[in-house]
């Protein structure tokens, strides 16, 4: 393992994971956008080819071959069969390009059954892009929390199960990259809610014990704004009393009750999330940076949201 860790934005391989529904893909897109805006050349790769990463940039879903979508920014979708084909072409010099169809199908079959093979084709391709320095940063919209360990630990799994062969001989340099906190980092995305926080804390321990990858940051997405100071809250309590409501009605009419109710809801939602945030902090290593990204009321998804997330991330990272 190489020297001391360096800041997130200076690493060349970032895996972004999170529980389903927390905005993992949005944050991966935001990070890629932030780095590209700084002038770094960035490859953003979607591992579960659902097209959500492309949707975050409002572009056509790319294939395995990276597509330039903006200045300094390339997008690709992982495809293990294409990765295998590239690997065979680069390493085995097997002239299989023309007739790999049935072969790839057969391989796909074994790879599905054999532990770690599909994962190594994924991680291998990403590490390869880093090793060859094709980009300054590779941002990976990686598997969700349930599958990320299998992905990141694939080189070790292969080392344990496969004793010889080409795949085995390739794991060492991949492990070098994955284990190097100067090059590689894992970002866990969560929201200040019960299950995402619980999964984040669990995952943090699993990452430490089952992989060699450094947890470089936890991003808390959709943080609700603090509405009232404690003194403000006391005033708000007076407002929703009968006297306060009567007074407000004389200013703004009968419907003002619903306006107050929405402020009440906002306050309660914020309060319950604050507790989960505290649970999260208590469950993390105190040295792990926790980046808070606000809930976007105006635009929840798409290019506009991606740009806003990039700005918020840059602010949190002091960039």
């Amino acid at each position, binding site marked *: 393992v190489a020297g001391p860790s360096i800041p997130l934005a200076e690493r060349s391989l970032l895996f972004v994971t999170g529980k389903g529904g927390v905005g993992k893909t949005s944050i991966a897109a935001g990070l890629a956008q932030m780095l590209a805006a700084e002038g770094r050349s960035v490859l953003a790769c979607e591992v579960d080819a659902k097209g959500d990463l492309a949707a975050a940039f409002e572009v056509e879903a790319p294939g395995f071959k990276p597509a330039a979508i903006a200045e300094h920014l390339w997008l690709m979708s992982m495809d293990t069969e294409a990765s295998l084909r590239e690997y065979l072409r680069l390493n085995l010099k097997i002239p299989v390009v023309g007739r790999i169809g049935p072969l790839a199908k057969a391989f796909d079959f074994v790879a599905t059954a054999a*532990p770690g093979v599909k994962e190594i084709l994924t991680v291998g391709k990403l590490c390869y892009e880093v090793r060859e320095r094709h980009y300054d940063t590779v941002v990976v919209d990686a598997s*969700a929390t349930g599958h990320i360990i299998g992905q990141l630990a694939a080189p070790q799994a292969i080392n344990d199960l496969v*004793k010889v062969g080409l795949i085995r001989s390739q794991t060492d340099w991949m492990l070098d990259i994955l284990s190097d906190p100067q090059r590689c980092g894992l970002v866990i995305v969560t929201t200040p809610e019960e299950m995402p926080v619980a999964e984040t804390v669990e995952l943090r321990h699993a990452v430490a014990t089952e992989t060699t990858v450094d947890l470089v940051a936890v991003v808390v997405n959709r943080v609700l704004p603090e509405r009232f100071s404690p003194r403000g809250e006391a005033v708000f309590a007076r407002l929703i*009393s009968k006297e306060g409501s009567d007074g407000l009605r004389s200013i703004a009419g009968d419907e003002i009750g*619903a306006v107050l109710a929405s402020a009440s809801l*906002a306050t309660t939602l914020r309060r319950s999330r604050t507790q989960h945030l505290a649970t999260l902090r208590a469950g993390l290593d105190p040295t792990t940076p926790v980046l808070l990204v606000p809930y976007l009321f105006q635009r929840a998804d798409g290019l506009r949201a991606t740009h806003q997330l990039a700005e918020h991330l840059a602010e949190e990272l002091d960039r």
Partner: protein
Amino acid sequence: VSGSTGSLAQLLGSREIVIACGPGGVGKTTTAAAAAAMAASRLGGDVLVLTVDPARRLADALGLKGIGNDVTPVDPSIFEAAGVHPVGTLSAAMLDTKQSWDALIEAHAPNAETRDRILTNPLYKNITERFVQSHDYIAMERLYELHSSGRWDLIVVDTPPTRNALDFLDAPSRLADFFSSRLLRWLIAPSRSTLLGMASRPFTQVADRILGTQFLADITEFFMSLQSMYDGFVERSESVSRLLADERTSFIVVSSSETVPLREAEFFATELARRNLDVGAVILNKVLPETLSDPAVATASRRLAERSEAETQALATRIGVEAAMLDRVLDTVVKSFDDYAVVARREEASRERFAVGEATLVTVPQLDRDVHDLDGLLELGGHLMGG
């Protein structure tokens, strides 16, 4: 949005299996538990909720301790404490993938020797965790087993989070395909026939160079053992598929009103219908209050935003607070309303675009606290039934 006039109570009262599915993070697990709790308390019968990964506090509330496949009756006194006299009973079970696979191998292995060879194979754990969407398959397999026991009037299932939301539907047939595939036969019997041997040669050569002969041999041996259970597996997976398509089974699609989950939910509902599976209800959780998009309320908010200094001062005096502080609080109240009004309008538009088809549409309001006890489940359940 259209939707039928049926209700969720009707669905829960008439079906034997209700499967909750949908994108992650929308409250699927809680919704399944709430539907089961309501069915048990109001509709009667012996109700089981089969859940995959409940929040710790919810699992505690249901009396589910640790992991494991045991079915745990929910203590009726918990209902009584919540002020409810249940007509039926509620039980809960979690899904332990490893334990379920072991049970399946034990049930189908032709003899003890094969069983042990599989259970002790070093690849077994890895493979059961990964291959052919093993989680998804085993969830449906376990559902089949529980249903076949004849112990339950209604089973409500919470589906596992999957990479592809539909994996669990395909899992049984994929497993059958897997066992009956020519590839598997080539792999495990390369020398049995010259013709097959020749056909598999390029594959074996490449696989050898990539994976190494020993690893390939390990895999082969493992699948040879599994092959002996072929008939049992295929028959079982066909039964599971039939059960999912049976008229006693219905699916409920759970989502929030945010664009991305809703898009996924719509895809899901369409796919279920395309497979001739019954989509009984669509449940939209975390729906913001309608008042947020009510023009009259927006006018009141504007009026408050445009209040005069004198009005603020008068109100401050009336309720006995400092005017400057009140001024800030009122600004925050307006800002807070404006923020959520934007979200409410956007989500309302998404819901309007969302095509429900024949399914019952149920909207559940955004609750102001997490659901982690029976009280909460019953509150949520009340909203479900009211829809």
